[in-house]
C-alpha cells in the first residue's frame, strides 16, 4: 500500500532498510546467542544519523518526528527485534529530556545522544512496581544542591550499556503518584551500579539489567521539570514512545511474513510448492491483511502525534496493543508454515516468535493498554 511518504521519509525507510539487510540481518543470530550488546551495529546506526530522528535540530538532531522514528524502527525490526530495541530504547530514554528538559539539560545531554556517541535508557519499573507504576519504592531525598537516590530498578532496557538514564523516583511518598519525580542520572555516578543482567526469551541482543542506587548523589539540577512531575513525564514519554513499540512489533510481523512467503514458495511437498496450497495461501492472506491494518493504525497514530493532536493516549495504546497482538499471531503462523523446520533454531523464524512476545508486555502490558483505551472511551462518552 502506498502510504504517501514524503521524500525524506522514503529516504529514511531506504536507509534503515539498507542497514537492516546489510548490517543487522547477518549478525542477528549471533547476538541472539551471545546476548552481547550489538555495539558494531549501534555504531553504524549512529553514523547513519538515525539517532538524530528523535532530537530537535538545535541540539544536533534532525527534528523530532515520530513517523520518521517509526519507519526506522520498523525497518530495523524486520531484520532483528533485539537490535532494533537497543535503538528504540534510546529514544525512550531521551524523550523525557526532549519533552521536559530545560535549556541547560538539553544542551548538556542531547548532542551526544543525537550523534549516537551515547545511548539512553528509561527507568521506572521495579520488582514490585510493573503495571502499577505508582508502587515504586526508589526514593530521591533532597539535601542542599543534591538529591540522594536509593532503591532498585529492574528490567531496564539498555541498562548498563546506556550512559544517560531518565529515572523515576519518589520525592514525597505521602503524595502517592504525585510524589514521583524524574531525574537524569549519568553512568559512573558514585552509588549507581548495575545488578543482574536478565537471560531473556527474546530480544536477546538488547541488554536488560537492574539499576542499583545506594546513596547515589546527583546534582539537584538533574531534576527534570519539577518535583511531583514524575508520572506526567512518564505518561507523556509513553505517549510518544508507544508508536515506536508498535513499529517494532510491526517490523517483526512484516519480517516474519516475508520469510513465510519466501519459504512457502521454496518448500516442495507432494510434488509442488506449498504456496500452491489454498490452506497456506489463506494463512498468508490473513497475515498480510492484519499486518497492513496494523501498519495503517501505527502510521495514523504517529502522524497524529506529529501534527500536534493533543490527546493521543487512546490511539497510541490502540496502536501498541493491536500491532503487538498481530505480531504475536503472525509470527506463530509464520512458524507454522515453516513446519518442523520452523521449530528448529537453524531457521530464523522461531526468533521472530520470541522477539514478538515482549511487545505485548513492555511499555504497558496489552491489558493496561486496554484499560487506557476503555477509560478514555468512557470519558469521551461522558462529555
Amino acid at each position, binding site marked *: 500500500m502506498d502510504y504517501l511518504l514524503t521524500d*525524506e521519509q522514503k529516504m529514511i525507510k531506504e*536507509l534503515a532498510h*539498507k*542497514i537492516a539487510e546489510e548490517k543487522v540481518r547477518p549478525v542477528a543470530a549471533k547476538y541472539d546467542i551471545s546476548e552481547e550488546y550489538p555495539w558494531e551495529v549501534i555504531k553504524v546506526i549512529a553514523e547513519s544519523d538515525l539517532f538524530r530522528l528523535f532530537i530537535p535540530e538545535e541540539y544536533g538532531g*534532525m527534528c523530532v518526528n515520530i513517523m520518521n522514528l517509526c519507519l526506522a524502527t520498523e525497518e530495523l525490526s524486520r531484520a532483528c527485534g533485539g537490535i532494533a530495541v537497543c535503538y528504540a530504547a534510546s529514544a525512550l530514554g531521551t524523550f523525557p529530556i526532549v519533552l521536559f528538559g530545560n535549556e541547560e539539560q538539553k544542551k548538556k545531554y542531547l548532542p551526544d545522544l543525537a550523534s549516537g556517541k551515547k545511548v539512553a535508557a528509561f527507568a521506572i519499573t521495579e520488582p514490585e512496581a510493573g503495571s502499577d507504576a505508582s508502587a515504586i519504592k526508589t526514593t530521591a531525598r533532597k539535601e542542599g544542591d543534591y538529591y540522594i537516590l536509593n532503591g532498585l530498578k529492574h528490567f531496564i532496557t539498555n541498562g548498563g550499556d546506556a550512559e544517560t538514564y531518565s529515572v523515576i523516583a519518589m520525592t514525597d511518598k505521602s503524595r502517592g503518584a504525585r510524589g514521583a519525580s524524574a531525574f537524569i542520572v549519568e553512568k559512573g555516578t558514585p552509588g549507581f551500579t548495575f545488578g543482574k543482567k536478565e537471560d531473556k526469551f527474546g530480544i536477546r541482543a538488547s541488554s536488560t539489567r537492574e539499576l542499583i542506587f545506594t546513596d547515589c548523589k546527583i546534582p539537584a539540577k538533574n531534576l527534570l521539570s519539577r518535583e511531583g512531575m514524575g508520572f506526567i513525564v512518564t505518561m507523556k514519554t509513553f505517549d510518544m514512545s508507544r508508536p515506536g513499540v508498535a513499529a517494532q512489533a510491526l517490523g517483526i510481523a512484516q519480517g516474519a511474513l516475508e520469510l513465510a512467503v519466501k519459504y512457502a514458495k521454496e518448500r516442495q511437498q507432494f510434488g509442488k510448492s506449498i504456496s500452491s496450497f489454498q490452506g497456506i495461501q489463506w494463512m498468508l492472506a490473513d497475515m498480510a491483511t492484519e499486518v497492513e491494518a496494523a501498519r495503517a493504525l501505527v502510521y495514523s497514530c504517529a502522524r497524529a502525534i506529529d501534527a500536534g493532536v493533543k490527546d493521543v493516549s487512546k490511539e497510541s495504546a490502540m496502536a501498541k496493543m493491536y500491532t503487538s497482538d498481530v505480531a504475536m499471531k503472525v509470527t506463530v503462523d509464520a512458524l507454522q508454515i515453516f513446519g518442523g523446520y520452523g521449530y528448529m533454531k537453524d531457521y530464523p523464524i522461531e526468533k521472530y516468535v520470541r522477539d514478538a512476545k515482549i511487545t505485548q508486555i513492555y511499555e504497558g502490558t496489552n491489558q493496561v493498554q486496554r484499560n487506557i483505551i476503555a477509560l478514555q472511551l468512557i470519558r469521551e462518552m461522558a462529555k
Partner: protein
Amino acid sequence: MNIIVCIKQVPETTSVRINPETNTLIREGVKSIINPFDMYAIEEGVRLKERFGGKVTIVTMGPPQADAALREAISMGADEGVLVCDRAFAGSDTWATSYTLSGAIKKLMPFDLIICGKQASDGDTAQVGPGISTHLNIPQVTYVKKVEEATDKSMRVERMLEEGYEIIETPLPALLTVVKEINEPRIPSLKGMLRAKSAKITVWGQKDLDLDPQNIGLCGSPTQVVKIFTPAQRVGGQILKGEVPEIASQVVELLRSEVN
C-alpha cells in the same frame, strides 16, 4: 588532496540473467547499482579526504540515469559529481571510454589522485583504470589493498598479487585501482542522502570536452565483439587411484585416447 573517483553504473549482478537464444544480458527489470568494486574506490577516496583534507569528485560516463550513481556516491561523503553523457559516446569500448573519461578529468585539473575499482562486474576487463592513466600519462598502481602513507608529492601503497603483495611508492598525481580488501564501504548517512538529493550534478557532453571525434563512441572503439557465448560448464574431472606406476600408465592411456 584533490581526489577523483571514476565509477560505473552496472546491472545488479545477482539478478542478471542471460537470454539463452541470443546469449545477451536480459537488462529489463534489472536494478542498476554502482559497480561493487567502485564502492571501495569511493570509500577510499572519502577516507583519504577525511585523513588529509581536500575534495572528492566522482566521475562517471553513462546514460542520464547514471545520475543516481553519482548521488549515491555523494551520500557516502563525496563532494561533487560529473556525468559524462552524450549519444556520441554510446558504444564505447574500454579504449574509447578511458579516452573520454581522461578528457573529462583534464577539465578537472589539477588533481592529486584518481581512484578506480579494479574492474567492472559487467565487463570484467579491468582496462579502463589503466587506460585513463595512460591517456593522462600518469603512473598507475593496480590492485591496491592499502594506502600506507601519502604526502603532497608521493604515496606508498600495498598492491595485492596472487602470491603475496608488493609495496610501491609512486609520485603523485597517480591512478590507483583498488581491490575489495582495502576497506569496508560505509552505509550513507541521512544528512549525506539529503545533501545528495539537492546536489548539482555537472553534465558534460562531447562539445564540453576536447576530444578527437575519431576516438570516441562506437567508431572510436577498436574492440570488435565477434561472438558472445556462455562458456560450457566444466564437468568434474576423473580421479585415478592406486599405485603410482599403475596411475602413470593409466594417464598415458587416457591422454592417448584423448589425442585419438
